[in-house]
């Protein structure tokens, strides 16, 4: 009889079955997880400890904004985590997506185009991707620090243009009156997007996040994903394997930027206005910190990193303020913790690099990279991957 021998195998437990299902139906498992998050998160905040702090509506509103940051972190993860191109000006694409929607939809903008939210979600992503390519093209020969400096410059230039081209963008005032998304009513069932009701925004965000994450997961395991990884490891060897490094890098920039474009359109519609100050360097930095803390290369890790950091920033620090003020603790009472968030990020990043360089939730690959010592020969001790010239 063969049946008993089967039960001896170690992959029969419910956990193993779950793991196998997840591996075999990657996309479905991502969709189901986001569905659960979409349903459970608004219910969790009704629990006693959490509902005392703020109302459910306020929580959900915060989650919708957290979603924007998760989306940004997922997109930056494609550029930094998968393709290994350090981008310090990522907020620029967020700004481009936001302003694209402002110009397309706001009655206050000079364009008067009146395009609605749903097509603009796609168009905004395309516009951002276009600018991603535009940034990518001149920086193709750069790597590491040099690339970081150029992208940093780009990240400063874009908000500066929106600030100073005030005939078109109204400068510091920004563009207001951006309309909310609209959905046709099905019978009596109407979904209305308003400032007072964050739920439609929240669920729209969940859908966007689920789709983006499915796409990224598929990309990661595709021919293109491997090409990104190869370029991250060794660009010359990648070119010598037949990879067109130019196209591959431009695609990383374009796809990363398009995700930020989604986030930009959504955020413009959610907040109802855009101003150049929304896209300062701190946004780029915060998103990068989310990617690094969460675990570069792992979509779920990055999403959790973004959620944790944003929640700390938006909820925990305010809570701390209230707590110390309520208890009248000397010294601590007079500190505004929200002011010190970047100090805390800095400390968190330094601690992370020392204790757990792969991030909180690393991809299995990165864990192996950092914790599986090279047997026999250290390949990593070889000279850095630059174009080899002449003899050695």
């Amino acid at each position, binding site marked *: 009889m063969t049946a008993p021998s089967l039960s001896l195998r170690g992959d029969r437990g419910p956990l193993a079955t779950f793991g196998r299902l997840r591996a075999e139906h990657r996309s479905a498992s991502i969709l189901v997880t986001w569905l659960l998050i979409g349903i459970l998160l608004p219910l969790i905040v009704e629990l006693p400890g959490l509902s005392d702090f703020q109302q459910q509506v306020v929580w959900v509103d915060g989650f919708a904004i957290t979603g924007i940051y998760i989306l940004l972190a997922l997109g930056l993860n494609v550029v930094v985590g998968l393709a290994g191109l350090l981008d310090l000006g990522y907020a620029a694409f967020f700004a481009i997506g936001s302003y694209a929607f402002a110009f397309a939809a706001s009655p206050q903008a000079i364009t008067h185009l009146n395009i609605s939210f749903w097509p603009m979600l796609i168009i905004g992503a395309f516009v951002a991707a276009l600018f991603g390519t535009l940034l990518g093209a001149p920086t193709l020969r750069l790597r590491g620090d040099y690339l970081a400096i150029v992208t940093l410059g780009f990240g400063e230039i874009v908000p500066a243009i929106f600030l100073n081209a005030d005939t078109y963008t109204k400068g510091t005032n920004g563009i207001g009156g951006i309309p909310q998304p609209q959905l046709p009513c099905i019978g009596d069932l109407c979904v209305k997007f308003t400032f007072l009701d964050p739920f439609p925004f929240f669920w729209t965000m969940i859908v966007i996040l689920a789709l983006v994450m499915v796409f990224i997961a598929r*990309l990661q395991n595709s021919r293109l994903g491997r090409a990104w990884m190869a370029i991250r490891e060794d660009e010359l060897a990648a070119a010598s394997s*037949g990879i067109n490094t130019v196209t591959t890098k431009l695609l990383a920039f374009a796809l990363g930027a398009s995700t930020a474009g989604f986030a930009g359109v959504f955020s413009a519609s959610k907040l109802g206005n855009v101003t150049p100050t929304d896209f300062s360097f701190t946004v780029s930095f915060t998103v990068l910190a989310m990617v690094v803390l969460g675990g570069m290369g792992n979509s779920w890790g990055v999403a959790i990193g973004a959620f944790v950091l944003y929640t700390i920033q938006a909820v925990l620090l305010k809570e701390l303020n209230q707590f110390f003020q309520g208890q009248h603790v000397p010294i601590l009472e007079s500190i505004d913790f929200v002011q010190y968030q970047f100090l805390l990020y800095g400390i968190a990043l330094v601690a992370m690099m020392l204790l757990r360089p792969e991030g909180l939730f690393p991809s299995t690959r990165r864990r192996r990279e950092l914790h599986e010592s090279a047997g026999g020969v250290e390949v990593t001790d070889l000279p850095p991957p630059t174009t080899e010239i002449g003899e050695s």
Partner: protein
Amino acid sequence: MTTATRPALPTGGDSILVANRVTKAFGGLVAVREVDLDIPRGSIISIIGPNGAGKTTFFNVIVGILEPTSGGVMISGRRMIGRPVRAWGEPVLWFAPAIVISVLTSVAGLAKANSLVELGIVATIVALAAMLLAAIIRPAWYLRSLRSLGIFRSARPNEMVAAGVGRTFQNIRLFANMTARENVIVGMHLKLKANLGDAFFSTPRSRAEEHWAHDRADEMLALVGLKGRGDELAKNLPYGDQRRLEVARALASEPSLLLLDEPTSGMNPNETAEMMALIRKLREELGISILLIEHHMQLVMGISDRITVLDHGERIAEGTPEEVRRDPKVIEAYLGTPAS
């Protein structure tokens, strides 16, 4: 033109690679001077020479990493590497569509067709941007139109792979943090066809292709003697196996010519013998032509059909192993001049 006074290029009827008077100078230092090389289809050719003879520079010129100062390389009769010809024509190609559209737009402007003018201005910008983007990406149609205009630009390393030239590196350059199998699948990049859309929608075509690539990679690994090691990270393999993996990755692009840059450097005698057996097997079973670069002379004697000897960037001898071994210039380069 100086080329007119030179003897005609060897047409290379059955040569897979013909290098013609390749010179590479770094400033005042001439690393490679007027080196000729002919690799007949199905042969094993070696380039040997003492350290610093210019072997790797020559190698980097023929794979498209370094642009030669003069001379050129033909693959299967088609010129791939050399000085640009009519390079001034390339900007014409970039601007031509935009200029044509803007002329048409001006005509429309004279005819007072305002909506056409708006469209024309947008189309001009799009055409210009598209052509400039094509110029840096260099897709196949762009290369074709360059060729039809008689413009010649040296091929890039990835274009050389597409032309059927695979290579390995002197200092191993594997994708250290990818598994052995993934390394080989990256090598198959040009054989796989899945595009962005396939990846997004996980089409049956792309899934079938991934399965095929997986199996094919395992075959390649088995071929070089790494059967069952596919899931190990490249950096965790022993040194000799890393070299084998590099060969497998180069083979994955199904090259007709394989360039091996010191494939046995740092290997013990046992591993060296295995590598030499592997090289012989590649030629005999797969019919791949091989160019071997080595500085150990004894090593290549038994395996090569012909040997080219470089010293101080110049070719000092060429012939069968037996001829080369007896050549006084070669003996001098390796052992120095007699004391008397």
